């Protein structure tokens, strides 16, 4: 396995490192103290845009098409992306996910959108003067891991659709110029009833209900969205009706996660590394004199974290290497995501133990990382969902079939267990969909 990244890429990583140190980390701390994200008109966003840094997949579209990636030659896209993801999260994961760009909404548009949709919805990010965001709106108060349970309805009415329902936990959802909104045309159809719509901010009937208050990641905006008789034209249907033959629509949602799981894993490594570095810095200051009885306990924790960081990074890189070589990576990506999210938390938690009584003080970065990193274990497929996926692939695990629990459940998800309909599940990735498209950038 070749984990080399070409030397021409190094300056990009260095620039990100510079940005991280001078902006992402201090601004992330500022947002944390204020308890909410920087306002969209904060000068930082313009500045970062002018430097060419974006959040989410913008990729290099050629004639509004994802460049063909089937010439058999390996790419380095995924490996580059994990390196950037680790570096960005090292400085501040909340800030990294709030960089202007299409965010998680970019991937489905890129993979499934019509040429006109790509031109309009991704093309707007070519403008390097006005910060803009996109969003991906799948989760609902009653549906997270099990996306088949979404209840936002899309009703056909002449040549438009009318959306009604609620979305929650949507990253950049309030500041986004548009959101990919997942809805069902008929819950009885299960996943084949799913449709995604590109909904512009300001469309009548589309409102932001609130910005959530969270345990951490204050710099990242997490919004609840309401669609109340929100009328969108037929042309807002992502990819057009033909994209939804069979379970196609659902697949396009899941493809987005296939791309991002190794990146989330790399973020876990980045955050864990930040906790480790800060802990080591303080430990070196404190344990200077004759060796304290605590020293060996402190060392044990640090060497444990250091070796686990290395292991987590290897898992993330392997998943990325497989993707770059167009080999199936569902198991490896799941392993990396499941392992590294927990590793990040462990690094922070053990770091706090080294810092001792004062660890809980916000003067030390580690307590912030502890609060921030927990989210990684939940987003884009929880650790449980990753394990379901891994176990299914490795040992043929099938979950016991669900029993209907009442009228409201009777029509959901074909009674299947957490098989191929879970948020962050890799199980639509039977084919080449595990590959990050060429030219995609994500920090």
């Amino acid at each position: 396995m070749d984990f080399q990244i070409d030397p021409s890429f190094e300056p990009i990583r260095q620039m990100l490192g510079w940005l991280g140190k001078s902006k992402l980390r201090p601004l992330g701390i500022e947002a944390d103290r204020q308890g909410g994200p920087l306002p969209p008109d904060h000068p930082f966003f313009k500045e970062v845009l002018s430097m060419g840094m974006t959040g989410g997949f913008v990729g290099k579209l050629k004639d509004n098409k994802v460049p063909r990636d089937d010439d058999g030659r390996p790419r380095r896209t995924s490996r580059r992306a994990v390196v950037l993801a680790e570096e960005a999260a090292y400085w501040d994961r909340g800030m990294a996910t709030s960089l202007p760009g299409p965010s998680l909404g970019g991937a489905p548009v890129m993979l499934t959108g019509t040429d006109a949709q790509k031109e309009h919805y991704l093309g707007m990010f070519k403008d390097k003067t006005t910060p803009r965001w996109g969003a991906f709106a799948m989760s609902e108060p009653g549906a997270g891991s099990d996306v088949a349970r979404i209840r936002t309805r899309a009703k056909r009415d002449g040549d438009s659709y009318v959306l009604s329902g609620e979305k929650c936990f949507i990253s950049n959802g309030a500041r986004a110029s548009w959101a990919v909104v997942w809805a069902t045309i008929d819950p009885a159809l299960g996943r084949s009833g799913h449709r995604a719509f590109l909904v512009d901010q300001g469309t009548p009937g589309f409102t932001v209900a609130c910005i959530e208050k969270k345990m951490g990641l204050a710099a990242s905006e997490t919004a609840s969205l309401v669609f109340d008789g929100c009328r969108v034209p037929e042309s807002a249907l992502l990819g057009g009706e033909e994209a939804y033959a069979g379970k196609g629509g659902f697949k396009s949602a899941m493809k987005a996660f296939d791309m991002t799981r190794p990146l989330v894993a790399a973020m876990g490594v980045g955050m864990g590394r930040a906790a480790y570095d800060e802990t080591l810095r303080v430990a070196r200051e404190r344990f200077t004199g004759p060796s304290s009885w605590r020293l060996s306990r402190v060392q044990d924790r640090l060497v444990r974290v250091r070796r686990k960081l290395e292991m987590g990074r290897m898992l993330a890189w392997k998943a990325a290497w497989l993707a770059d070589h167009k080999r199936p990576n569902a198991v490896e990506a799941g392993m990396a995501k499941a392992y590294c999210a927990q590793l990040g938390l462990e690094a922070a938690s053990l770091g706090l133990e080294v810092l001792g009584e004062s660890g809980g003080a916000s003067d030390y970065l580690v307590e912030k990382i502890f609060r921030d990193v927990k989210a990684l274990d939940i987003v884009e497929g929880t650790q449980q969902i990753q394990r379901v996926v891994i176990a299914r692939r490795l040992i043929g695990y099938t979950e016991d079939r669900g029993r209907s629990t009442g009228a409201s459940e009777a029509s959901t998800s074909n009674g299947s267990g957490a098989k191929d309909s879970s948020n962050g599940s890799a199980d639509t990735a039977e084919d080449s969909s595990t590959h990050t498209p060429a030219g995609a950038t994500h920090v």
Partner: protein
Amino acid sequence: MPMDFSLTDEEQMVLDAAAEFARRGLLGKERDHEREGCVSDASRKSFAESGLDLLSTTLPGTNSDGMDLSWPARIQALTILARTDAAAAMALWLPGTTAALAKSLGAPADAVAGLGQSRLVDAVGETSAPCSALPMAGASRILDLDREGRWGIAEVTPSPSEAMALHAAGPRSADSVAWLAQGQVEAEAAHELRHLLRLVGSALLVGLARASTDYTAAYVQERVAFSKPLSHHQGVAFIVAEMAIRTTGCELLLDRAGWDLEQGQSRTGTDAWLEACETALWVTDQAVQLLGGHGYMKDHPVEKWMREARTITLLWGGVDAARADAARDLDLGAES
């Protein structure tokens, strides 16, 4: 060894009073306490009126006001409060306990007044060590006790400090200051007090673990994913079962440690603390995990419990000092 954890009628009444106070004085006010950085005056008043403050300000066998309750009962009362709001429970309970400890160390009465938090430190030296984000419960004095039996009470000028948790207990920072009073007791006596203090800390953690376990157990039975309640997914069910096993075990170990204290044995206080640390850290994390995205939001209490468990386990020397103290009677020689 015969052991009897049953409570007297009087003790049961006190526990009922604790439950009643938790319901009326704490429940529903947790986020207000957190935001305001202190326990409301109304809650303080109702705590005093309930008579529970007497439990915290005295040690068994040392009081003369008829509240000579056993350790198991005291610890259970604190656990009940911590189940609702551990930070507020700490703010209400700790100053009294610290003062009682100081008195039993022989500290002069004028130094004892105004004590808030205590610390189990490596060594009490010339000056007191600075503190950072230490929950001071509105007080300005701290008591330090080391393994050799040296103790000191320091007056500090605390400044508010940003902290991860326990806001209701008023986290404060202060630079190194001179001692108000200092003294030394036998190392053995110091160790007894260290074990005892950890038992009190364990009650807070076990309360958090119980709250998290019960809240999660209810949630996973309500919430449906993949056509059935979360509780019917084995991956969820086994975690909740494990949460219950560990929490129940810790509650019993706490009772056991209380019982041992009554018999004049204190070391299990530190054992209970070590188990409570491990359990509370794990259980509160699982609670957030099993609530998924909802667990990460402040609409539910579990994220607060996770922050609190992580912070409380850092106090009183954390697990490192406890492991060293617990190993003391193994007679393997001392760490230098």
